[in-house]
């Protein structure tokens, strides 16, 4: 499960801790039920869901659970209420949990609108009839988005389902001051890249690589694959239409093996947050991650100078034409109760105003709307936008581009196994292929 945002709990009012003595042996069911009724109607500061909302309300389910994105999203929703008069009831859930429970969430009592990502993951739900198509909402939105983004918002049936809010690039992040100190130069080709990694390891600030969470490694795999075999092959591989035990995929692992010795120690014991901290403290020289790494940078000076270079070229045929830039946005559940209000909200969330309001508080991403003003962008955002805007192809990240069960039950352990035993690629890919057939074959 990709975590573009680190999860963090809701800052809300504290409840009171009323530990009563166990004396409820004979409490009646009515009394018990009344407590639930009470608890249901009393709200804690941030959150509650209603199954039936008053007219002029829309319910939203969100996994923007850590402090900054949460604040930014709240501001965006407030803007919506100000301009449209429709009030919003927000249910904020911890980031990982929301994603993990998405299946039961959608079949239970989902909110009208909820946060999600573009990619096969989204199309999977559309196919399973869990989403409401929003072609009418897109009538007004179409001119505001590039064709690539329009395509990314459609389901497999060609209908629109998704409204994008922002995206962010995966690239190789570094601190220029460290590069200046140690005399590093930005590499453009694979060989230069390996040489730089080697030098960094020798200097005591090795290239950062963390895969305790299981998904960060996917970014590196995706890039090496797209650089080696091209974007089209990558997409087909993700869709289960290419063999994993063929020469092309083996080449990807072979290249990766060259990089492995130069990573930091303790790869599988570190989280991406710890990796980000290492990058900030100059204990690590460079890091293949998404731009959300900036959230870990608490030192303002470090955050201001944080920048990236594009993943180096491997095969000149492909150059650096593809960029991995996951898109975050919103979907409307099939079970939406306040359909009109929901569509109003979706329409708003796709506008430049919404993007600008959001990014004003969370400056680690880039707006997807063409018309969004880039005046307030910091250097990192400007660079990110240039990178994404200039990309010939945009991929979404492995666990959004392929089936979720394949990504989580097969690829996460497989990549961890590769990291542990990089020489045993032959049997690894054979097994991936077998499992792929079992899963996609269904």
């Amino acid at each position: 499960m990709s975590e573009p945002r680190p999860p963090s709990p809701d800052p809300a009012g504290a409840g009171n801790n009323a530990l009563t003595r166990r004396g409820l042996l004979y409490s009646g069911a009515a009394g018990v039920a009344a407590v639930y009724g009470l608890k249901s109607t009393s709200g804690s500061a941030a959150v509650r869901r209603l199954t039936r909302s008053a007219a002029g309300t829309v319910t939203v389910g969100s996994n923007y659970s850590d402090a900054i994105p949460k604040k930014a999203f709240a501001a965006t929703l407030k803007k919506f209420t100000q301009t449209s008069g429709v009030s919003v009831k927000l249910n904020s859930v911890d980031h990982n949990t929301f994603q993990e429970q998405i299946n039961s969430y959608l079949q239970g009592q989902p909110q009208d609108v909820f946060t999600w990502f573009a990619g096969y993951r989204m199309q999977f739900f559309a196919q399973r009839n869990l989403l409401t198509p929003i072609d009418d909402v897109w009538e007004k939105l179409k001119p505001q988005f590039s064709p690539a983004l329009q395509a990314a918002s459609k389901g497999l049936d060609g209908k629109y389902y998704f409204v994008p809010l922002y995206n962010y690039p995966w690239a190789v992040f570094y601190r220029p001051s460290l590069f200046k100190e140690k005399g590093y130069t930005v590499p453009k080709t694979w060989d230069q890249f390996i040489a730089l990694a080697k030098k960094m390891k020798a200097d005591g600030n090795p290239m950062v690589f963390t895969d305790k969470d299981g998904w960060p490694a996917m970014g590196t795999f995706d890039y090496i694959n797209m650089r080696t075999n091209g974007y089209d092959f990558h997409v087909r591989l993700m869709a289960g239409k290419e063999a994993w035990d063929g020469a092309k995929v083996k080449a990807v692992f072979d290249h990766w093996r060259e990089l492995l010795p130069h990573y930091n120690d303790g790869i599988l014991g570190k989280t991406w947050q710890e990796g980000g901290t290492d990058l900030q403290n100059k204990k690590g020289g460079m890091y293949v991650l998404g731009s959300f790494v900036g959230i870990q940078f608490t030192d303002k000076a470090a955050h201001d100078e944080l920048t990236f270079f594009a993943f180096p070229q491997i095969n000149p045929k492909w150059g650096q034409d593809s960029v991995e830039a996951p898109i975050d946005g919103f979907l409307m559940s099939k079970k939406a109760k306040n359909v009109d209000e929901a569509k109003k909200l979706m329409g708003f969330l796709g506008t430049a105003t919404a993007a600008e309001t959001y990014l004003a508080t969370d400056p680690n991403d880039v707006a997807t709307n063409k018309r969004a003003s880039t005046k307030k962008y910091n250097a990192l955002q400007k660079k990110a936008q240039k990178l994404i805007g200039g990309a010939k192809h945009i991929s979404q990240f492995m666990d959004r581009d392929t089936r979720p069960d394949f990504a989580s039950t097969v690829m996460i352990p497989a990549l961890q196994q590769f990291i542990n035993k990089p020489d045993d690629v032959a049997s690894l890919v054979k097994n991936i292929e077998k499992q792929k057939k079992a899963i996609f074959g269904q």
Partner: protein
Amino acid sequence: MAIDIAADRQTDGVRRRRRAVRLSVRDRIAVAVMVGVPLVVVGGLIWFPTFASVALSFTSWDGIGGLGTIKWVGTENYQQIAEIYPPFWPAFRHNLIWLGFLALIATPFGLLLAYQLDKRIRGTRVYQSIFFLPVVLSLAIIGFIWQLVYSPDQGLINNVIGRTSQSGHLIDWLGDSSINLWAVLVAAGWRHAGYIMILYLAGLKSIDPSLREAAAIDGAGEWHAFRTVIFPALRPINIVVVVITVIEALRAFDIVYIVNRGRNGLELLSILVTDNIIGEASRIGYGSALGAILLVISIVPIVVFVWNSFEEKNVRVFRFTGRRT
């Protein structure tokens, strides 16, 4: 004579029946409710899902859409699990290692603690409280606490022995798949030993003191006395301890989930079930097959426990019902 006996038996039967009949209608309803409601709750929430789970293990289903989307696939799930699912056999091994550790290290240590504390030295109560403390903690909290101890750069152990990534020669207790299972087992054993200790303390208290006197007067060493007299006298507790140890080994989940979601050397059967069911994966049939495997393995200790409990229970029950007023 025969007639008398027959008459006796008849009277017996009548007497018994009469006792049963003496329950009024209101009483019958009371009994029905008192037994029926718990029966429905436990049957509906535990037994029904158990059988449904076994049934689902022969299907392929992604959990979305109604029951109509379920596809029957026979033993295909089991075949795949055994042949092409990489974490399965490691998970199986890890559960066995878990069992071995608990049975051969944690449980005997708990017994040792109980035996020493039974000697009634000064401060027994304090020691007892200290050793038992981990048992009241949630396994999730235990997972958290031990992560603080094992953390590569900020943890207690590495900073004390100087093996962080800064000093080189990093020992990655939880990230290195060749040692992380053992690291986690220490945490699990820490809790398990306390639990076992209390059970044995109770058992040791109930041993007839004259037995011990006899063993002591024998002149043979402490170990001999323990082996030949005390340990056999603990038989009823031993059986309970064995069952508890096995069940805990099969149920292990929380600690490992908290540490790293059960990957990279910490795979367990229970984790594999949740991997496939909770989360976006949603391979319901597959996950149910894994659950069914877990069930089959668990049945053995359950049967042992139930059998053992009822060997004596039967006697007691009959003794009770056979009473004449």
